Structure formats: C-alpha cells, structure tokens
C-alpha cells in the first residue's frame, strides 16, 4: 500500500523573509491539517507517544483533528502540555515524537509538531480557554524562581492544583530564553505573552525585576514558603577564551540575541540599545543558538557565515533550522575552528584566524572527534564574531544558596523528580541538566509539581 506523502507546511519565500523578523513558518491551513491528520494510522501501541518527553496522547489529539473537532483536540493536547503553541514551533520533533512514528519505516512520519501548532493557534485565534478555576484552594505557598519554560510550567501546574504561587523573575518580562533567546521569526513574542496572561488568570503572583539571591535571600524563602522550585536556567555564556576575546565586535550569542530580541536593537536608533552589524559576521557553533544568531544577523543585512568544527551531520541544531538558514543565505564553513581573533589599534575585530579540522574516531559523545590539521591556518575577514558554543549555570542565585548541592559542572544536583539536597527545595530545567530543550524543561517542571502536590496536599 502506498503511503501518502507528508503535507508540507506553508513557509514564506526565503528571499522575502530574510529581510524581516516576521514568522518564517506559517503552519497548516485547516484543510491541510485535516489531510495530514488523516494520514495517522492511530496505532494501538503508539510509538510516537514514547518519543515525547511529556507523553502527549498524540493519536488522541490527531484523531480529533481528522474529525474536525478542533476544540476537542485542543483539550486533549492541553491535558499534557501547557505550552503547545510554543512546543509546536520549537521542539526538535525529528528526534522525539516524529522520530519515533511508525511511518518512518515506510515513508515520512506524521507532521506532529505542525499539527500541534495548528491546534494551539486555532485555540488562540478562537479564544478557547480551558476551565482554569481550581476546585479547591490549598493554604500552602510555593515560590517559583525564574520564569522560563520550567518555572512557567511548574507555576501553572501548582496553581491549577489550588496552591498559592509566587513567581520571581529577574528580567522585566517572563519567558526566559523564549523571549530573549529564540527570535521572533521562529517564535512570536505574542504567543509567550498569551501564556503569561494565562498564569495571571490562574492567580499566580508574578514579580518581575527581582534577582532572587540578592533581593530575597534563600533563607527568607525557606521561612516563607512551603516549597521552592528553582528554574533559573543555564544562561551564562561560555567563551572559547582564545586570544582577542575582549575585542569589540566579539559577542556571545546570548548578548547578540538579547540586544535584538529583548532590547529591539534592530530598530536602533528608534530603540535605544545598539548592536554592531558590520558587513561580515561569523557565527561560531552548530546548535539552535548558532542558527538563531546567524539568521538574525542576516536580517540585519550582514553577510553571514557559520563556522563549525565538525561536519554538518554532527550539528546539534534542529534540521529545519539548518535548512531554513541555508535557504535564507547563511553560508556554512564546517570542519573549521577559530584559534585567534585579530583586532585593529582601536580594539575592533577585523579578522579571525582559523584552523581546518578533520574527523577522527568517535568520542564519548558518540560523535566523531574533530582534530586540527597542522599548518592549515587561514584568516576569515569579519567585523563581528558571535560565539554560540554553550553555556554555564547562572550563578546569581546559586552562589547565595548555602547547602544546595551542585554537581561537578556547577549545576544543581536533583533526582528525577527535581528533589534537591535541601528539603522543600526542587529544581528543574537547564539548571539541572545543562542546556537542553524547552520540552525537557517543561517535563521537569511537571514532575516537580507532581511531587510537590503529593507532599503538600
């Protein structure tokens, strides 16, 4: 039996979209969504669900789309995932649900992510809201530190269960990486705002501009709250720390993206925060962060090259992002590693000395190890270099939290349910695992919420 081809989502023309920050992928129309949903075999033993970190009833919500019952579909989805419009857009589906779909064996998997997004957007556009009034109020107080996906999920779960929840965020806005990291063309801020509004409706008290650790001491939190959830992320950027790292024009991807996403530097001088653009920008790294920085730079009019030390096969970014970046005109220079930044007398970057690499035997990560080829050095001209090579734990709170055990990389030690070395204190998301994904951070928040509920009900 011939299996029907997977239906493509609607994407904007690369030459048009690479000039603005509007969304690239427009998703499915109703007709397309129904067609695609009908391809699902409704497996009695759905392997896709096993591939999903939060175990969404995937055939369940897809079946309702095929039946044109969009509201019903939304209800199924929301039972498992409180941020479907976000996950539908940014989850690495190809290695999760879609990667585990049985149709992979005979053709292309169901486009689960696009269907999830379709339903979530449909609900937003039709003002569908779930019944969010908790059945009973419980006289217990919970503090949530950090308003990224982990904190947002924990807050909403616990608030729905009837707890009184205070959420503290050091930024002026909630969302964490979703607002300062992932650009508008991949995840519109309006969608993250929607989610924040929902939290307010649930009765979560949101306190922004609060650096927990300095403005509120952990001791005070321990006295005031019955449980504390830490979801402060792993936001501190790493640098390769090669010669010339202090030069002007060398950015971490976080800084570059924050200037653009949060501070709207692309509107300078209409907005107040500037960002250096220059003609040639080099982005170093191969993950989602590198793709986001490169595609943002492109939209500011630069000529952009991604430099990565392994080959494209080893790049950790979502396949879709790599494809989009290429279509839009980002150049890729793989098997290349920067070794030194070169500056002019005013401290401005003018070039990057690189060395060519080859792949050796697989290392602990299972990927083939990059090895420098001697005497292959060459110089790439660039006035801006953006390093997207990973992050470290955010110390703002951890340095103040006496007795909180950390692992050897400085992340919080926590068990599967987020229990830490201190009673009443839970943690989850990037601050436990190191840089991971939105859905894993949400999954961690959900698990922690479940044990907090058990302990305090």
């Amino acid at each position, binding site marked *: 039996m011939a299996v029907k081809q997977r239906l493509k989502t609607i994407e904007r023309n690369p030459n048009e979209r690479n000039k603005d920050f509007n969304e690239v992928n427009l998703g499915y129309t109703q007709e397309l969504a129904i067609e695609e949903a009908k391809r699902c075999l409704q497996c009695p033993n759905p392997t896709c669900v096993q591939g999903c970190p939060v175990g969404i009833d995937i055939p369940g919500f897809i079946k309702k789309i095929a039946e044109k019952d969009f509201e019903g579909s939304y209800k199924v989805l929301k039972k498992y995932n409180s941020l479907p419009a976000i996950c539908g857009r940014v989850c690495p589906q190809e290695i999760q649900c879609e990667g585990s779909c049985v149709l992979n064996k005979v053709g292309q998997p169901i486009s689960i992510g696009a269907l999830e997004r379709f339903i979530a957007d449909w609900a937003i556009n039709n003002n569908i809201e779930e019944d969010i009034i908790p059945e009973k109020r419980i006289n217990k107080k919970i503090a949530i530190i950090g308003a990224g996906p982990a904190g947002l999920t924990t807050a909403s779960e616990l608030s729905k269960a009837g707890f009184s929840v205070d959420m503290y965020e*050091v930024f*002026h806005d909630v969302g964490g990486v979703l607002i300062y990291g992932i650009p508008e063309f991949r995840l519109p801020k309006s969608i993250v705002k929607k989610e924040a509004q929902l939290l307010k409706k649930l009765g979560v008290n949101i306190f922004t501009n609060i650096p927990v650790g*300095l403005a509120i001491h952990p001791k005070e939190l321990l006295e005031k709250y019955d449980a504390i959830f830490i979801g402060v992320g792993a936001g501190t950027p790493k640098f390769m720390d090669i010669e010339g790292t202090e030069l*002007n024009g060398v950015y971490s991807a976080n800084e570059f993206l924050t200037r653009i996403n949060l501070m709207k530097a692309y509107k300078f001088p209409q907005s*107040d925060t500037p960002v250096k653009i220059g003609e040639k920008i080099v982005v170093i790294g191969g993950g989602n962060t590198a793709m986001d920085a490169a595609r943002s730079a492109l939209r500011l009019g630069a000529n952009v090259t991604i430099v990565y030390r392994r080959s494209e096969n080893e790049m950790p970014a979502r396949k879709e992002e790599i494809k989009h970046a290429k279509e839009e005109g980002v150049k890729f220079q793989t098997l290349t590693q920067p070794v030194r930044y070169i500056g002019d007398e005013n401290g401005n970057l003018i070039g990057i000395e690189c060395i060519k690499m080859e792949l050796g035997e697989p290392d602990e990560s299972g990927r083939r190890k990059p090895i420098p080829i001697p005497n292959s050095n060459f110089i790439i001209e660039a006035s801006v270099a953006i390093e997207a090579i990973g992050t470290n734990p955010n110390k703002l709170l951890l340095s103040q939290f006496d007795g909180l055990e950390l692992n050897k990389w400085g992340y919080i030690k926590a068990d599967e349910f987020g229990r830490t070395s201190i009673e009443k204190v839970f943690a989850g998301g990037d601050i436990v695992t190191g840089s991971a994904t939105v859905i894993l951070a949400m999954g961690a928040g959900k698990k922690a919420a479940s044990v907090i509920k058990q302990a305090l009900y």
Partner: protein
Amino acid sequence: MKNKILEKRKLAYGVHEFWIENPIVSKNAKAGQFVIFRLYENGERIPLTISAVNKDSFRVIVKAIGKSTYELCRLNKGDFILDVVGPLGMPSEVKYYGNALVIGGGVGIAAITPIVKELIKEKNNVDVILGGRSKEYIILENEFKNANNLYIVTDDGSLGEKAYPHQFMEKMIQEKNYDIIWAIGPSKMMKACSEVAKKHDIKIWVSLNSIMVDGTGMCGGCRVRIGNKLKYTCVDGPEFDGRLVDWESFEKRLNQYRKEEKIALSKYLQEVGEPTWL
C-alpha cells in the same frame, strides 16, 4: 513596585541626585551594589550604583553623558521609573582592615559614600580623598564628616589642593601605612590609582563600569580580564583588585558604541532642544 521619584536635586552641572521608592532594593542593598533602570518600553537598561538607602527608598546619583542618562536626568520628583532591578553585583568586602584610604572621583564620589560609612562602622581609620575637575564637581562633601581625614583635590586647584587623585594618593602613602584602598571614579583615575597601589604593593578595590545589558551574568558583554581570567563585571564584580585589571582592553570596550551613542544623543537633542536643564 511603583519606583516613584521621591526627591530630585541637582548637585553639579549634569549631575543629579534621585531618591527612588523601592523597599526591596532599600531593604537588601549593601555597599558596592548597583541597580539597573529601564525608563520605558524599548528603553536602554541603565546600571547605577546604589549610593545610600533609607527605609523605603534608595539613592542614585547620575551623570548625564548620553541619551539614556540625559533622559533620566530630565525626570522630576513625582515621576516613575518603569523598571528597577536590584540590588545586583557582589557587595564590597567591607571588614576591619586597620587603615583604609578611599578615593572618589567625580560622580564616583556617590559610590564611595556607603563604603566609607561601612568601613567606619567596622572601626577602620578611614582617610578620604575627593577629586574633581574643579570645585563645582566636588559633591556630597558633608557626607564624609565622620572620616578621620578628608582631603579635596581638583585638577585646576579651584578647591583644595591642585592635583590629580593618584598624585595625592602617592603623597599620602609616603606618609602613612594603608592596609586597604578603594578608588572609584573615571577609568583613567582608577587605572592611575591602581598603578600607584601596585607600586606600593597595597590591595586596591576599583568598581568597573563596564557596558552591561542584563546585569545577571547572562550576556557576557560586561566581561573583563582580571589577572588573565575572564570575569563578568555584573556577577563577579563590579569591584575587583585594580592591580589585576587589564585596563587597556577595559577602556577600549567602554568605547564600543561611540558612534551609535553620538547618533542617539544628537537625535534626542533634536527632539528636546538645548539641554539647559542640565
């Protein structure tokens, strides 16, 4: 959080004192820490040292040097600051040292007020040097009455001795043994003082005013090289041992956005006219 401006006072040309209502900051702030202001949606994030606290409010002293600080200095009593986040940064390492020398230059005088106060509380002998371009720029003089000795130096000799702070500092070190030094002011001054301290092998704290975005250790933009290690001013500092700071790259990084800053300021002045209110 309302962040109302309770008081505003002009201290010198372009230098203004603000008292801002914010109990979270005032309750928790320690000497050496700072806040970040954002005046409105899409505004810049402006780091400012906390210079004093009251029950429900705290003080900052701002020097208008570019668009965002001009805008801030135009606000008046009764106005609100959209966002105030703080306290941020590591507190000053104030404890009993013995003899302390504290140097404040220009608007840096605002930053040393809480440090001097704390040092006196810890029973140190504290000598203070205030430096400025001319007598109009010496601010807050009467807040150092409790110091053991107060010296004033100006570049033009219009008040106190005619000298640069580091020159006067050198003279004092010749006469007296100091166990610890603080120097806060323009980077040129802090650098020069650090060189003197290094020569005499005395520890010196300086407070670095790196260009910041978030102030929470998230962007890496405020990085400085300290004794050959990369440090983030906002979370590892802002105070560092001045003898270990790589001043050359620090100063170059301060000039990163010169061109853009000029554009922003002239555009702003076109909108609001001559800054007679400064």
